[in-house]
């Protein structure tokens, strides 16, 4: 297939990006990841020495500072352990890798659906004229989204109901063809864990073993995977085959979802940020943790980011110049100056000390 260069990367590219086990950020290349890890997670807070691994830091703290390291700095709450030896992408447990890939794929398809909705462009691979594809193309992205939302609401309702087929859910449009998941079914059977949203869409088989599910390691993902996938009997969706309506849409692990979320999903259209929280606490927990970590990201990370984008560094100094005076004001309240006299210099005060008095000679 022809490579189309767009502003957004392919899912392959996204999956190929190295990422940090401790904070789930991804990076352009391994070198940047390693420098990120050394700066954010393996840096000694006593002397600033950057070690290669958590174990190395632990030994350093022990030997040099006679202290013991109990957790990895700046890591997500459940990734602070010292028992796993991570260096770059090495040492990341398989289940965590799968969980990460699932998240990337989910985010990718969400973003893609939004882009399609925003631009009105058909999904890639649909421009040519195969029959079923054309049909699907006729279905506008808006309709697609609506169905997605309905389906999600439905699934959420089922979930909220403890897995039982729900009491009527408030959905603006008629329900699509019934997809009645059986409570307690094994969700994995028959379905690829990452079904593509459109038949024939070129995306590689997931890194994980097909049919395998990321084990529930994340907090918030309480082991319960929703019956997002078709029951064993229903039409499975092997890549390349036209899928049924609801269940070939991106699947996210859900926790307890609220039916009243559905109008929101119906309302949001292209360009919007993927809906946070609410209906998909499992996935969004990771998302939120990640974005939370991103928010507290320090300058080093910003620099790494900037280097990735090949753009000008965000002028860690310059940003201060721009907002420095203003920012300074609000922060000044909480700062203590070691030397606070802005009129008289320390030298002048020292000059007044008796022992520096100039002997009149």
């Amino acid at each position: 297939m022809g490579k189309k260069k767009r502003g957004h990367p392919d899912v392959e590219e996204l999956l190929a990006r190295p990422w940090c086990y401790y904070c789930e950020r991804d990076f352009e290349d391994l070198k940047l990841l390693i420098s990120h890890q050394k700066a954010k997670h393996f840096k000694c807070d006593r002397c600033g020495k950057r070690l290669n691994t958590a174990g190395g830091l632990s030994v350093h703290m022990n030997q040099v500072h006679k202290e013991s390291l109990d957790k990895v700095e700046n890591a997500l709450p459940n990734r602070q352990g010292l028992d796993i030896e991570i260096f770059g992408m090495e040492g990341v447990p398989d289940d965590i890798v799968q969980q990460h890939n699932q998240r990337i794929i989910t985010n990718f398809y969400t973003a893609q659906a939004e882009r399609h909705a925003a631009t009105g462009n058909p999904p890639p691979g649909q421009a040519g004229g195969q029959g079923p594809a054309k049909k699907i193309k006729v279905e506008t992205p808006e309709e697609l989204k609506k169905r997605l939302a309905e389906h999600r609401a439905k699934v959420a309702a089922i979930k909220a109901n403890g897995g039982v087929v729900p009491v009527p859910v408030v959905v603006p449009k008629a329900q699509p063809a019934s997809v009645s998941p059986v409570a307690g079914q094994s969700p994995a059977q028959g379905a690829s864990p990452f079904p593509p949203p459109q038949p024939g869409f070129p995306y590689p088989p997931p890194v994980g073993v097909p049919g395998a599910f990321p084990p529930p390691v994340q907090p918030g993902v309480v082991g319960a995977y929703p019956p997002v996938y078709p029951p064993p009997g229903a039409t499975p969706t092997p890549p390349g085959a036209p899928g049924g309506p609801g269940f070939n849409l991106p699947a996210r692990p859900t926790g307890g979802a609220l039916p009243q979320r559905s109008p929101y999903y119906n309302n949001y259209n292209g360009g919007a940020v993927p809906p946070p929280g609410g209906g998909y606490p499992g996935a969004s927990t990771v998302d939120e943790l990640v974005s939370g970590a991103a928010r507290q990201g320090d300058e080093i990370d910003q620099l790494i980011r900037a280097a990735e984008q090949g753009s000008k560094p965000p002028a860690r100094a310059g940003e201060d110049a721009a907002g420095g005076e203003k920012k300074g004001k609000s922060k000044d309240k909480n700062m203590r100056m070691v030397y606070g006299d802005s009129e008289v210099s320390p030298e002048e005060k020292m000059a007044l000390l008796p022992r520096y008095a100039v002997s009149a000679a």
Partner: protein
Amino acid sequence: MAPSTQFEVSQPPSDVISAVVFAPDNTNRLLVSSWDRNVYLYEIAEGTEDATLVNKFEHRAPILDVCFGANGNEAYTAGLDCSVKRIDLSTGEQTVLSTHEKPVRCVVYSPQHSMLISASWDHTLHVHNTSAPNSTPITISLPGKPHALAASPSKVVVAMTARLVHIYDLPTLASALASPDPASVTIAPWQQRESSLKFLTRAVACMPNDAGYATSSIEGRVAVEWFEDTAESQARKYAFKCHRQTAPEEEGGGDVVYPVNALTFHPVYGTFASGGGDGTVALWDAEAKRRMRQYQKFPDSVAALAFSNNGKYLAIVVCRGFETDMEDFNSAGRTKVFIRELGETEAKGKGPK
């Protein structure tokens, strides 16, 4: 780890150090001026990891600044006794060049124009023609009390109280000195600026390429500005916070802000080092607006910094920092001089991206 390339001078001054400078023509020679009324001349002994005390020159008052003259055998000092002195380092002979009405805070020598400029708390600058030692200096009155002074090849920057910054053009000063009646010439600053920093200026350093200068304040901040008075150049100026520490929560949190006592530009790469009351020294890339390095904490406040003429050495002097309301201020036993031998590219910036 690489073997340490940093060593401590074995015979440091006994009191607070006011300045450190390297000779213009000798990488291994440096002068340290101290409040203990002495100027110390050291020479770094190649291969021994020490600098030997070659000589010390006693003054009758604490010395607030020192600089080399045209060569490594000539030095000028600024004294608390209001005098500007020339020292012949080979003979030890001291001559008074001029006397201010109040203590002299800074001296700076311009090798390009054989000119010595001294700044005093009496709100004046004295401009001396060092090639004619007996001539009377030109006096320039200042609107504020000067606290820092630095010269680039063609400019001299004076930072004063009330955030005033005056920049004088050295060729103009030189031609005034050469005029038949220097005393009658009135000299206006080439540029008058307001400091980019809100607090008292602590140090000024000029870029070796004559493009601009950096200033630092008592409030953990450094500003970088350019001389050229065009909108583009002025838009490039910036300031940033540094030499701060987060206070522990039990002490109320917030930042402890240290004064940035010292600034010095690397003579070859044009990057600069800053030293603060927190005892750290950081290397900055002024163009790329990045911090390149931060060295391990020194035991006390960094009082002054200097690069050698070729940038091979960085002298770091540490002593007890003067903090607000210190009545029993004493730096005895806490004054140290460190010499760091820099690696090939240690101070080399990556350049703007």
